[in-house]
């Protein structure tokens, strides 16, 4: 307001436009500024860009005001509300997708580096000698779960069409997770106290990259790309204590993240506008706000025989990897946002979670470490951190179930 008043006082020459006059007006007090700053009290209010003008400076000021509002929010719920309340068209990312080479695309969307194999074991040994892992008991429990679902339990009628794997695989996974949690709680007492969710949704909303709007009343303007993941893992284990990091926060991986030269629409990825949600499986008030492991079951659409029939043998691994990257990024990102971090307030500690993706017979194990949430163009300018995902190949759980 003072600036506006000042502009009116400045006489505008015939050749000067409003902008230059404003610039002159802006620079003039700055020259006087140092002289004025010498005095302890500034005599004039700060000169800032307009708030409602149709200018880049005004837009920048509005963006900064919104970001300041998020920074100043008192509770995490309020922060999430401010970040997600405006709905715009966004890409809906499906972790379980038939798209070819989806894992490379998803790495680009989530700034993730994929490393095969499992992460390096922690440097220090375990503080207390843990009891020996009773592999035989674990194997017996797994066999019992498998046989119960595949053979012993008499089900009524045939499973619905194209859902045979899910009808057997989903209860099998439930039983397996429950059994393993019970047996392994001797080694990890935190597992005994962990929360187990069955088929609870996990949502995450983030911005990454920019595009020029091709058509519409905002044509030609730069707009951020928004993504939303709505995932439903078969089971997930949540704990009240965070898992320790695998590698330091600023660990630099020499591998480059794949860069795709076309728009995400080519994946195919489609835009929709609906509620932006960020959800780890339970609300912010839950003390069990850190994730441990997720278990995903691939539907019949992605079973091996079907992919082989479509000549997509190389896509079998891709399906598992894409599912793990997307789901675990969404989960760890949501966990980080529950702690108050967001793209302008990057994480100060890495968020770590694990995942197991299976189609009933073949299992793949993944570990994910979220090092950065700053994925927007503005925040990613000088951000060397990358998220890391370790993953194994498909390991078959059993060779064959012999009936009778």
């Amino acid at each position: 307001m003072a600036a506006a008043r000042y502009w009116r006082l400045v006489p505008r020459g015939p050749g000067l436009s409003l902008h230059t006059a404003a610039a002159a007006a802006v620079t003039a007090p700055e020259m006087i500024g140092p002289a004025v700053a010498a005095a302890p009290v500034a005599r004039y209010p700060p000169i800032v860009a307009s708030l409602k003008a149709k200018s880049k400076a005004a837009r920048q000021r509005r963006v900064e005001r919104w970001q300041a509002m998020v920074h100043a929010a008192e509770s995490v719920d309020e922060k999430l509300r401010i970040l997600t309340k405006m709905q715009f068209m966004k890409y809906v990312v499906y972790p379980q997708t038939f798209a070819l080479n989806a894992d490379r695309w998803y790495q680009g969307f989530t700034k993730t580096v994929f490393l095969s194999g499992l992460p390096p074991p922690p440097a220090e040994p375990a503080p207390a000698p843990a009891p020996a892992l009773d592999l035989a008991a674990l194997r017996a429990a797994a066999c019992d779960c498998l046989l119960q679902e595949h053979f012993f339990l008499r089900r009524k009628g045939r499973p619905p069409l194209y859902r045979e794997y899910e009808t057997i695989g989903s209860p099998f996974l439930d039983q397996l997770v429950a059994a393993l949690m019970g047996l392994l709680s001797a080694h990890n007492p935190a597992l005994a106290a962990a929360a187990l969710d069955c088929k609870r949704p996990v949502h995450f909303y983030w911005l990454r990259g920019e595009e020029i709007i091709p058509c519409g009343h905002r044509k030609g303007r730069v707009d951020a790309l928004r993504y939303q993941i709505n995932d439903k893992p078969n089971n997930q284990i949540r704990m009240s204590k965070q898992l320790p990091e695998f590698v330091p926060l600023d660990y630099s991986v020499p591998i480059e993240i794949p860069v795709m030269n076309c728009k995400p629409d080519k994946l195919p990825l489609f835009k929709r506008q609906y509620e932006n949600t960020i959800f780890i499986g339970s609300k912010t008030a839950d003390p069990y706000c850190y994730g441990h492991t997720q278990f995903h079951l691939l539907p019949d659409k992605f079973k091996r025989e079907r992919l082989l029939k479509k000549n997509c043998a190389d896509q079998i691994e891709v399906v598992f990897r894409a599912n793990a990257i997307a789901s675990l990024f969404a989960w760890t990102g949501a966990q980080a946002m529950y702690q108050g971090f967001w793209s302008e307030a990057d994480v100060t500690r890495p968020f770590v979670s694990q995942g197991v993706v299976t189609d009933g017979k073949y299992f793949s194990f993944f570990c994910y470490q979220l090092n950065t949430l700053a994925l927007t163009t503005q925040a990613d300018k000088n951000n060397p951190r990358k998220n890391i995902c370790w993953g194994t190949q498909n390991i078959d759980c059993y060779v064959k179930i012999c009936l009778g």
Partner: protein
Amino acid sequence: MALASGPARRALARPGRLGLGGCGAPRRGAYEWGVRSTRKPEPPPRDRVYEIPGLEPITYAGKMHFMPGLARPVFPPWDPGWTHPKFRRLPPIHEQPLYKDQACYVFHQRCRLLEGVKQALWLTKAKLIEGLPKKVLGLVEDPRNHIENQDERVLNVISHARLWHSTEDIPKRETYCPVIVDSLIQLCKSQILKHPSLAKRICAQNYRLSTTWNRESLLLQVRGSSGARLNAKDPLPPIASREEVEATKNHVLETFYPISPTIDLQECNVYDVEDDTGFREGYPYPYPHTLYFLETANLRPHRFQPDQLRAKMILFAFGNALAQARLLYGNDTKVLEQPVVVQSVGTDGRVFQFLVLQLNTTDLASNEGVKNLVWVDSDQLLYQHFWCLPVVKKKVVVKNEDILANTDKTSECPQLFEMRLVSSLQPTFPEGHCNSPGKRQEEPTREEKADAPTQSSILLCAGNKNCGQPGALHLVISLINSDPCSPNISGRAAEKRCPFNKTLSTYIVHKLQCIIITFFFPLLIQNQTTR
């Protein structure tokens, strides 16, 4: 007469059967005919040649076209040689392979018995004992079985199920009921370090049970799948001693004449008498331990009443026990030396029912002799009320999201949970009863309140306004002045407050206000003039 055709003609031809009592109601066999518009036209009547014996009718079948003077050929019904699954017609009931003359009364998971527990006890020849057995309660009291931070963890479980586990503001019962049961079981399983026998159990969903037994010339059957079943490697030990079992000989089963004991059971003539535990031979966890029954319907009429739920629990536990007994000891009817014990937990997310059934005898045909024993602990509330949204009175938050525990019996909460823990603890102990820490029960009030908001919130608003003016004027003024945030309701009623806060509802309220004003204005004027 020529104008009438088909069923109308039939109706005219047999006027005596036209409508039941002449009121136009359809005849009993009406639905056998099928819908008139899609009914196939009746075939024309056969020629009289076919009725005259000894005559060989000459038909135009060979000529492949109609010929006046020749008889209409009668062809055998065409058999296509294959059946399309969509158009497969089942043979009539009398010709089905499993048809039997004796009717069987089947109890399935949606049977709501009229006489509830009494009827279930008669059907299973059992004696009811209120309260859980002392052995179980002893395990409840045992401090070794307590979980650390039990109250806090149970409160977390309840909050998680009722509020946190879903993105909605108020999760529905269909989601929160299974979540609460699973979380409590998970909490019990967390004691696996103290009680390693918890590892010798496995849960099975969607199992199919089928057992048949005779009861005073009635053939009864329990069939179907209902909820989850916890199986164990070792059987539960018997609870009642031999003497108590012998003492049941003197007990007389309660009858409820004139109501038949088979009321609300499904009567059918096509059934299979084979017993089926739901699992094949060689199953490593053959003994049923606990059954879980969840009433998850959102609407109260769709849920079972507590008495009906208890009856269902008794019958399914009995069915499981009977199938197990027959598997172990054969099909002969006798008094069991090693009684079979099965436990059961039924809930609708807040009210819990616990049950222990001990099958002492498979001789169920007569009313005398040893009876089976049933211990029931009914209507245990885990919590009394749960507010999902803050209660706002006059724009001031009076109560935040909170759970109201039982204020009367402060120790019931841990007990209820203990029961659940106990039930899942040791297979060798009958603790299996789920003693969930007494969830405080204030549900009854909540149920009532829940019904209230479904009525017009406008009336509630009007009622809440402390306006001295009577009649229509009062209603109008209170409607105009009604504050979206002021309704004086809590709990589930608070959920119904939402309509006022939503823009569509405020629009509707505004519209109603306008309508009411236009309607009531003349009344107001009348009132004022008459005064």
